Every structure is written in C-alpha cells, then in structure tokens.
C-alpha cells in the first residue's frame, strides 16, 4: 500500500508549499527546544554561576563531565532514581495490568469510571505534591491520625529517609497506575474477539488465555507503556520538589531534581548542564526505542 498521490501542485512549487507549512513549527521547535539544548551542551563545558554575566563564564572543557563521573551525589541520585523507578514501575505495571484483565469487559457506566480514572493524571503535579504533602504532614496530616487510631506511633513521614522514599513511591503509584490501566484496557478491548473465541474452543483455560493469548497480543502496548513510565521517572521532578525537595539528605532526589537543585540551589549552572546531558541521553535512548517499536508518522512511501 502506498499513500495516495498528494493533492498539491507539482514540482518545486509543491515542495516550497510543504516547507512553508512546516516552517513556523520547525522554527519554534528549533528556537525553543534545539537551541536551548545546544546552549546546554556548550554550558556543560563552562564554569558559570547564576547571577554573573554569561561572558564571564570560563571554558573548562570536559572538567564538568569528569567531575560528574566521580561525584558521589550524582551516583546517589542515580541510585535513588533507579530504586524509585524499579518500585513504582513494577507495582504500577503489575497492578495496572491485573486490574485491566479483571475489569476489561465493557459494561454500562464505563465512561464514568474512565473519567474518574484519568483525574489524577489531569491535575497539576504541584497540586498532587501539595495534597500528598498535607496527607503525610506530621502534625495536621491524615495518615498519622489513622496510624494512631490503629494503635501505631505517628511517624515523621517526610523527615525520615526511608519513609520519605516510601511516600513519594506511594504517591507516584496513586497517580500513574490508572494510566497503565487505561492503556492496557484499551489494548485488550481492541483485540479481535475471534482469536479469543478460537483459543477458548481449543480448550485454553483463563490463565492460559491471559498468558498465552492476551498478553502476548498486546505485547507492544505493554512495552510502550513501560517505556513511557521509565521516561517519566527520568523527567519527573515537580511532585518531589513540592513534597520533599529531594530530602531528607538525598533520599528522594531523583536525577531530574538533582539537576535542578545543582543549577538553582547550588548555582552551578555549567555543572548542572553536564548532568542534564546525561539525563538527556538516557531519555533520548528510551524515546528512540519507542520510535523503533511504533512510529506513528512513518509513511509507507518515504521521500
């Protein structure tokens, strides 16, 4: 199959029209995304502090990168990011897929439930962070109150490293499990019913249907949901910034947040830019993986 012939005039003029139509968007993305990233690359080889003129920044080559490789704080925040990603994504994917399999049958009222499930995704990360910070609050928080009711000691949730880490993991699971659930359920409901019917006639039981038919058939959806979640772990910082500011210590300082704090709390813009290049490379590699699995804009008749 090839695309139908494009309905626009022929030859060079046709090309020119195409360029004119993409030009504004390309210019905006170039100036607002590519140019800053290139600036960031240049900055990563300089020593520049906030508040001083950029012209006074000193070129120091690969020093920032060498420093980054030895920096224990960078390693620590990589480790925190890895742990955070491991726990949140394992639980979100397991819960999301399990719930989708349990509840996939189309039922009356499904649209109301769908509406409710995407609410945590639609509200501002700042608000999510604030609400959960309130719930975890040592003094006014609701969670401590119910702990006490159940006979436990109240805890300083956001002031103790392990508890703070648990708190941000739990918040992330609350916010993002519905996302996995919704993507997986969309995939399950799009499966051709004949295949499921055929496997049932062949005598497959429920478990066999799930593990040998359904999950393999939505494999690419599962992988993309997984990659999107991993990318978000590397992108996210707003909820953590509001809830814990990365603390106590570095207990909740994900890589993104570490970049942010290095730049704007420690005021080392050049060094932060170097760490951000590392972050960018990770996310870039993951995005490339998604593109290779499913490229929505790949046409069959390439120019």
């Amino acid at each position, binding site marked *: 199959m090839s695309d139908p012939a494009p309905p626009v005039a022929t030859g060079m003029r046709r090309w020119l029209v195409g360029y004119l139509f993409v030009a504004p*968007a390309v210019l905006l993305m170039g100036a607002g995304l590519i140019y*800053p*990233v290139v600036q960031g690359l240049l900055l990563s080889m300089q020593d520049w502090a906030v508040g001083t003129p*950029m012209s006074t920044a000193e070129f120091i080559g690969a020093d920032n990168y060498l420093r980054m490789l030895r920096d224990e704080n960078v390693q620590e925040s990589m480790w925190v990011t890895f742990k955070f990603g491991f726990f949140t994504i394992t639980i979100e994917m397991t819960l999301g897929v399990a719930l989708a399999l349990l509840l996939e049958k189309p039922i009356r009222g499904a649209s109301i439930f769908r509406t409710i499930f995407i609410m945590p995704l639609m509200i501002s990360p700042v*608000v999510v962070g604030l609400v959960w910070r309130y719930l975890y609050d040592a003094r006014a928080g609701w969670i401590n109150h119910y702990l006490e009711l159940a006979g436990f000691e109240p805890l300083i949730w956001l002031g103790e490293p392990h508890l703070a880490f648990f708190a941000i993991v739990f918040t992330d699971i609350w916010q993002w499990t519905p996302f996995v659930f919704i993507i997986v359920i*969309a995939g399950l409901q799009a499966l051709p019913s004949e295949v499921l019917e055929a496997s049932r006639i062949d005598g497959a039981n429920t478990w066999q249907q799930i593990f040998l038919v359904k999950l393999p058939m939505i494999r690419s959806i599962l992988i*993309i949901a997984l990659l999107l979640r991993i990318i978000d772990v590397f992108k996210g910082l707003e909820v953590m910034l509001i809830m814990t500011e990365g603390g106590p210590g570095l207990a909740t300082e994900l890589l993104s947040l570490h970049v942010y704090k290095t730049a704007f709390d420690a005021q080392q*813009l050049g060094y932060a830019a170097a760490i951000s290049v590392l972050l960018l490379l990770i996310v870039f590699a993951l995005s490339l993986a998604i593109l290779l699995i499913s490229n929505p804009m790949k046409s069959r008749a390439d120019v």
Partner: protein
Amino acid sequence: MRIESTKTRMTFHYAGLIALSIICLTPIYIMISTSFKNEVVIFDGNPVWFFFFPTIQNYVDIIGDSHFDRYLVNSIIVGVSATLITLTTGGMAAYALARMQFPGRQSIANGALLVRMIPPAVLAIPAFAVSIVLGIANQLSGLIFFYTALNLPFAIWLLYGFVKQVPIELEEAAIVDGATPWQVFTRVLFPVMKAGYAVTGIFVFRIAWNEFILALLLTDRTTRTLPVATSLFLTDAGPEWGRIMAMGTLIVIPPLIFTFFSARQIIAGMTAGAVKG
C-alpha cells in the same frame, strides 16, 4: 445457575471499579473539603470527612490579598496563547507532513517525535540562560514561547493522526475547484477536524496551565502563574494548608472540567501512540 454467576461477576466487577474510583478521588475530595475548613478544624488533627461548618474564608483570603487576580490572568494569557499558537503552527505542520511530499519530510516527522521527550529539567538550565540573553526572562511572552515549543511535538503528532482520518477526496475536490493549499487547510480541513483541534487544545492548555518548573524560573512577582503562586504558601512558618487547598482547588477546575466533557477523546489521545502501534 449461569445467570447467578454472571450476576456475581458483575457485582464483583462494579465493586472493583468503585473501589478504584474511591482511591482516585479521595485525595482530590480531601483537597476540596479542606479548602472549605478553617484553621482550627484543619490543625485539630482529627480528620473530618463530611461534617464540618464550611467557610469560604480561605477563598476570600487568597482572592483578597495575594494578587490572585493578576496570577489568574497570567495563567489564562499564557495557557490560551500557547494553545492557540501551538494549534495553528502544529496544524499547518501536521497537514504538510500528512499530505504533502517534500525532501526532509520524514526527518522532520522523526525529529519532532524525538524532541517530544525532552525533560523540563534539561530545558530549564539553558532556558534560564537563553531567556536572560534574549531579554525575555520574567515576561509572559518567554513562558508562552517555551510552552509552545514544548507542546508542538505532541500536538503535531496528535493532529497528524486527525488529518490522516479525513477522506482525501474532500481535499481533492477543493483543489479541482481551484483552492490553494492555505484554503484547503483553513476551509476544508479545519471544519472537519474541529474535534481533533479541541482535544489537542485540551492537552496543550492543560500542560501550560499546570506547568511549574519553567514558570518558577522564568517569571517574577508580576508575571507569576497560579502554580507558582500556590507553591509560595509553603512558607518557612509552616504551610498554610487552608489557602493552599483553596488555590489547589481553583487550579484543578479547568482540567477537571475538560475531563468531564471529553474523557473519551482525552483517553484516545493518551493511548493513540501505544494502541495503534
């Protein structure tokens, strides 16, 4: 027997969905209810779910003495401008990428998809530096500019899908009648793609409306947006929970309204990439 088991299964099904709904809604409900409580009730330490004497004092406070109106107007200007510019330029690009042939087309499409994922933290450092150099630091136009750039890749991607759904015969007929590409874009495609523009607009507006990091870095006292203003209630003297929850409630109103009216389309947009593949 069979009917019985179906009935049991349906009950279980609904019970599961209702339990999940309660989990999703509880924090949001707590925020909204807390915004109507006075300090005494909030700091009493006894969570009150339903029975308290509601007060609008928190709303009176935030609207009265914190330049709330200015921040609200800033948020609206930034959100609406970024949305309109993104939809216009993104729509044009999506049309060209979906319907026209020119060298470099596939590269542009791939490039747009790759830059879709740039983490805000990566952009924040150079954006701060770039905006100082360009003199757009602390201006609403700077924020609009970066939000537009950030949203364009995803908007192009979504709109591309909507252009592809339009029967090409419509455009061919218009061209036979002598319509220029611009006329095809505005008079043929736009009317049949309104739903696509609406849902794309919701995504873009929501991100611009909710965004915090760039807004925190690129604005000052007069150009602050609502999320930034809200974060400032986390004072050293302790968080003012009543006001924070009132601000939070006001911030989530527009996204929740969109969710109510077009959950189905929003989900279609969210799952488009994953499910079509």
